């Protein structure tokens, strides 16, 4: 067609004006199935680029090949929400000269919108695109190869990057509407064999945890929700994807049916569970920044009331219209919670990075009620501790901590504690939970941290919250 933006990846890179030292960006909607980051960075390495800043919305196990490109000097700086697997392990041991910058999803969105995180060239994988760059996370054509659903984390990049390259595995005829990414923001379109393996977005199907402790935690958390005072017709909710959080939705659903209560919206990473409640008429609208499984991805394609939002619209702390400001209840998980209600979801208790901030900071801060669900111990690892290994979500954002040994309520929320006590729930002092953990496992030795800073954790307002040091073995 006239004005076609179709080109090869190499040519798109050349045309973008990318130079050594610049910032490139990626989204992580294919999660463990992503093929775009490795493909593009391999190409950049082959073309001889050095000293690039890789600003991804998140990185996971599948990005281990970046280790080689860090050693070769192609990538010298990383910004992300999370790190996992061998890449995380190497970085925790001091692989990089510069510390990795960790931001929440909302924090990244607002940093891009405000110019604090400037992106020179964005490489955005899409499950369909036309020759001008109207693109989205699903395809309506017969040749559809992949589906990831919402492209919410890619939308700030598409809008604010100086140069945008859309990479797709299904070129469709113009105009590819409805669209997520607008051709008006796109400079080049590249067609490849595959942008991602959709089966690795998640397990795919709804999987209820059979772990009896998860079920106990979920039932307790559901009781907290139901008796919190926020469980009223028109309420809104967000949950994480852990076994316990998923199961919470199941128990809340029973209560919604029983009491005739409906939710106005569910937010965030949308799962098959939420889609089911929506289709049953129990949740009016779905606001989706990231589709956590194939069911959710299909739903966003087919259901006009399942709305895609950008990371900025979802969770920015500086944009007052972002959806988290309207959120009533959020149910989150944690690696560690400390006696001051601070939460760590990023660094394992062995000192090695193994997680992601995600929307934790954002939803905890702006929701009316934030509930953390975690067991007291995972094996011998304590989850309620005197002090978190790394501070990710400040305690002032956290209202309730649900464990199998009792429910702790932030002293700043006495009215919530009162409601839960009145409902017959076991409300305990969080110090008692930490003491209980210590009585079972003993006092852990200090972790062997070194002097090198390998990561810097930002709060969603752009201020530094904590530093992560290298681990020495």
């Amino acid at each position, binding site marked *: 067609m006239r004005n076609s933006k179709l080109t090869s990846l190499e040519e798109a890179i050349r045309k973008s004006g990318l130079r050594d030292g610049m910032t490139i960006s990626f989204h992580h909607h294919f999660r463990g199935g992503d093929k775009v980051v490795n493909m593009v960075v391999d190409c950049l390495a082959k073309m001889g680029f050095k000293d690039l800043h890789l600003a991804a919305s998140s990185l996971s196990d599948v990005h281990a090949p970046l280790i080689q490109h860090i050693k070769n000097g192609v990538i010298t700086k990383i910004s992300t929400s999370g790190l996992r697997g061998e890449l995380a392990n190497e970085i925790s041991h001091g692989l990089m000269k510069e510390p990795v910058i960790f931001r929440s999803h909302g924090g990244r969105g607002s940093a891009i919108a405000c110019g604090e995180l400037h992106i020179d060239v964005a490489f955005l994988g899409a499950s369909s695109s036309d020759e001008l760059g109207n693109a989205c996370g699903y395809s309506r054509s017969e040749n559809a190869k992949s589906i990831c659903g919402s492209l919410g984390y890619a939308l700030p990049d598409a809008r604010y990057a100086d140069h945008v390259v859309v990479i797709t595995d299904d070129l469709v005829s113009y105009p590819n509407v409805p669209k997520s990414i607008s051709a008006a923001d796109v400079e080049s379109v590249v067609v490849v064999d595959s942008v991602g393996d959709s089966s690795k977005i998640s397990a795919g199907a709804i999987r209820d945890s059979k772990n009896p402790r998860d079920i106990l935690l979920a039932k307790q958390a559901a009781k907290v929700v139901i008796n919190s005072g926020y469980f009223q017709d028109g309420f809104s909710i967000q949950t994480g994807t852990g076994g316990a959080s998923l199961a919470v939705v199941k128990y809340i659903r029973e209560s919604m049916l029983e009491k005739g209560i409906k939710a106005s919206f569910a937010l965030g990473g949308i799962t098959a569970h939420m889609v089911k409640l929506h289709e049953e008429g129990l949740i009016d609208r779905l606001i989706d920044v990231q589709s956590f499984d194939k069911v959710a991805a299909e739903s966003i394609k087919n259901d006009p009331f399942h709305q895609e939002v950008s990371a900025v619209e979802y969770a920015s702390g500086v944009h007052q219209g972002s959806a988290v400001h309207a959120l009533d209840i959020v149910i989150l998980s944690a690696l560690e919670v400390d006696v001051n209600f601070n939460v760590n979801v990023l660094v394992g208790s*062995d000192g090695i990075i193994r997680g992601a901030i995600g929307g934790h900071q954002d939803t905890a801060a702006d929701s009316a009620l934030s509930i953390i669900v975690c067991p007291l111990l995972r094996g*011998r*690892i304590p989850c309620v501790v005197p002090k978190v290994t790394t501070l990710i979500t400040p305690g002032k954002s956290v209202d309730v901590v649900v464990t199998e040994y009792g429910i702790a309520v932030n002293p700043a929320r006495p009215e919530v504690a009162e409601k839960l006590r009145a409902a017959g729930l076991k409300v305990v002092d969080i110090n008692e939970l930490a003491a209980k953990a210590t009585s*079972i*496992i*003993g006092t852990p*030795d200090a972790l*062997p941290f070194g002097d090198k800073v390998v990561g810097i954790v930002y709060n969603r307002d752009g201020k530094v919250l904590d530093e992560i040091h290298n681990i020495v073995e």
Partner: protein
Amino acid sequence: MEIKNAVAGTLESGDILIQIGPAKPGDTGLAVDLESSVAAQFGKQIKELIAGTLKELGIENAVVKATDKGALDCTIRARVTAAAVRSTGKDVWK
């Protein structure tokens, strides 16, 4: 006390696998080799618990290979005791 090769426990999360055998010829004392998912924070405590449990059972000379997946003290004590009983043939529960 005669020590034969014996095993107790599993490699499941929350468990510990204890493999016990006779001390190498010429060696005396308890040699505990620990591989643990929580070694940095609890390695010292776990090794002391394994050696202490064996000594309580009268075993002073042995080689122990422990593969820990985050077991609690009660589990570790139980697995070490079971391995010791299988190794010595001496039933400590009677």
